[in-house]
């Protein structure tokens, strides 16, 4: 299989935020991801594009799917992938983030995939190191690769993005997934609404140019895509909602509530799902759920991002997408 070279290599060093990208760049990522998607169905699932490159997954927050997804993506590109999580590093000895990052760079890392609970950390460290920095989620701010894989999934299902209406449901206030998705969806011509209790929607949300709903029934009317957000269970303890039960009754998606949306509406969730809270009876609408597609596409989209950011400047034959 021969692929045309990607139309848009990413002429940038880092992926920190959706707003770093242009529409053609996002389309270029999707095109490249599409080519990588076939890889998982082949007997040899690797390409040599990043052979000899070192990618460090530096995760200061618990994560299973994002870290594993990045790890598989790096390995399929033949990079050496090293995982550092806070519990097994010198971080527990009190090393500062800046020292940790500089040490990792000095050890020879070509790229750092970072997740951190403090907003703005990827932007900050990208100004402090020379290697590539890829944001795998920072605080409440951004999760750009999640947004890209979400959009890729929507595009695969709906065959288009522009003109679709999406409802993002749940804890928008604390969601980096929502922030990145709102930005990316608007760039791609989608109409975005958010649905949730006023305590979990930023007071300024309308400044994003989106519609705000506090009723799930109103919020789902006519939507093509429902994106459910994970409800962190500690939100109840900190007083944002009176009870998980009431939240679930008002904003959890069930087969019946799904019927309020457009008849062919699809359902996304960035995972991990709180079964029975954000979604009840998913088995009843499994054909409408794209949750596992998201996971599957995540690897291809992250491969595309690593490839487009890091494979540049390599010899021509190595620099090619899977052949």
């Amino acid at each position, binding site marked *: 299989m021969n692929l045309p070279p990607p139309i848009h290599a990413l002429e940038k060093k880092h992926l920190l935020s959706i707003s770093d990208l242009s529409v053609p760049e996002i389309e270029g990522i999707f095109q490249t991801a599409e080519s990588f998607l076939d890889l998982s169905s082949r007997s040899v699932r690797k390409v040599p594009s990043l052979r000899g490159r070192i990618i460090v997954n530096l995760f200061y927050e618990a994560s299973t799917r994002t870290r594993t997804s990045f790890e598989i993506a790096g390995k399929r590109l033949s990079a050496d992938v090293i995982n550092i999580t806070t519990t097994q590093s010198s971080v527990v000895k009190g090393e500062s983030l800046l020292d940790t990052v500089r040490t990792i760079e000095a050890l020879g890392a070509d790229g750092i995939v970072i997740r951190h609970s403090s907003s*703005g950390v990827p932007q900050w460290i990208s100004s402090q190191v020379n290697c590539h920095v890829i944001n795998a989620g920072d*605080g409440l701010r951004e999760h750009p690769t999640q947004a890209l894989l979400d959009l890729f999934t929507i595009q695969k299902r709906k065959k288009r993005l522009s003109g679709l209406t999406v409802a993002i449901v749940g804890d928008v206030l604390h969601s980096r997934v929502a922030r990145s998705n709102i930005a990316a969806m608007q760039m791609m011509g989608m109409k975005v609404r958010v649905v949730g209790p006023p305590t979990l929607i930023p*007071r*300024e949300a309308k400044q994003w140019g989106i519609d705000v709903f506090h009723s799930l029934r109103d919020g789902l009317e006519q939507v093509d895509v429902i994106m459910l957000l994970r409800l962190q269970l500690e939100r109840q303890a900190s007083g944002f909602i009176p009870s998980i039960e009431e939240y679930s009754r008002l904003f959890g998606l069930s087969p019946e509530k799904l019927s309020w949306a457009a008849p062919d509406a699809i359902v996304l969730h960035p995972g991990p799902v709180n079964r029975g809270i954000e979604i009840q009876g998913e088995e009843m609408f499994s054909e409408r759920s794209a949750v596992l597609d998201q996971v599957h596409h995540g690897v291809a989209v992250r491969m595309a991002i690593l490839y487009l950011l890091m494979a540049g400047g390599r010899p021509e034959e190595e620099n090619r997408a899977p052949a």
Partner: protein
Amino acid sequence: MHQREQRGSFLLRNVRMFDPVQKVDQTGDILVMDGRVRAFGVVEELPPSVPVIEGNRGLLVPGFVDVHAHFREPGFEYKETIETGSRAAVSGGFTSVCVMANTNPVNDHPGVTREMIRKANEVGLCRIFPIGAVSIGLKGETLSEMVSLSEAGCVAFSDDGLPVRTAKLMRRALEYSIMTGLPVIDHCEDRDLSDGGVMNEGWVSTTLGLKGIPNASEDVVIARDIEVLRLTGGHLHIAHLSTEGGVRLVRQAKKDGLPVTAETCPHYFSLTDECVRHHHTNAKMNPPLRQEADRKAVIEGLADGTIDMIATDHAPHASHEKEREFDQAPFGIIGLETAFSLGYGLVERGDLSLERLICLMSNNPAHHFSLPVGEIRVGGLADFALLDLSRRQTVQNDFFRSKSRNSPFLGSVIGGEVQKTFMDGRLVFDRMQDKEVER
């Protein structure tokens, strides 16, 4: 202890002496003998052996008075000491600085107060007036011994860094402080409402994904304190006013005749929360940089007399503390070196008169805190700043004398420069020599 020469004498020639309260605005010479003004205007007498200093037609104003600074000593000398803080002060034209009580140990005991004053005298660059804690250990529980602190030299009381924790404690503090005649200063913040916020709550915090501190967090405690003051009397002083609502509340309280005064800081009339996007943790302080409507309201409050004085909230932090994750970094910026120029920016833009600015930085803080400084009059203490309003400079690292560099104004071009600073009749800072004068 090395005892410095306490009171100096000099003849300063060719300056424009400017004191809006004493209604002084004249060009001429000023003679200082033993730390006090002997004569000014046309000075005929020149006692032998009195040094003559050329003023180059600079503007001579009463030395600035900062009622809100953190000099970190004792306990946090790696951030600042009384000596480095004093150097920062005099290079910014400040000759009197009130230092906050959140040291370690906390200044909740006369022994700590006396040690601060002893150290300040030893340094001998500017006058240091300690502020005592409202509550023991800043814990918000037990009142400190206000009368003893006052006798030891404290000029006000504050739990700054933290708000006075409860309305009940504020009531007791205002009542008890009546015996001292000193102000009770509050850092007005409902910390429950702030809920771990790290910057102003608004559009910028929403887009940056940073937890916000709403204006209401400040306003509700200002309202609380004002209502308690209505009950008790005493002297309430609102620290670092930053919100439109706060300005409105203080304006109304003054209209009601309540004994309340208020300060704001240069960053609240110079910057907004947009600054957080670019300046990272050097734009992090508490209260946080607010929005444009707040900035404008603060300027209005300065102009119409609602806000009585400009303080710096000079809060040094070491680079290893500030160079980290935004939400993990400590609140606070330094401010002594840049305060006058930022205030002068308001004069240049037509928001304030020069008279009003000097009142806000010298006369008013001295008056409201009953400090024996802040004026140019015969017989008065010879604390002055000599300014060149025509100079502009770029703020660079070497502009600062503080031990720390946590300023959002690094890289900014600011106007109006402090040329010389005199305290107690001694030249304590001279920019011409680009170093502090031998003491």
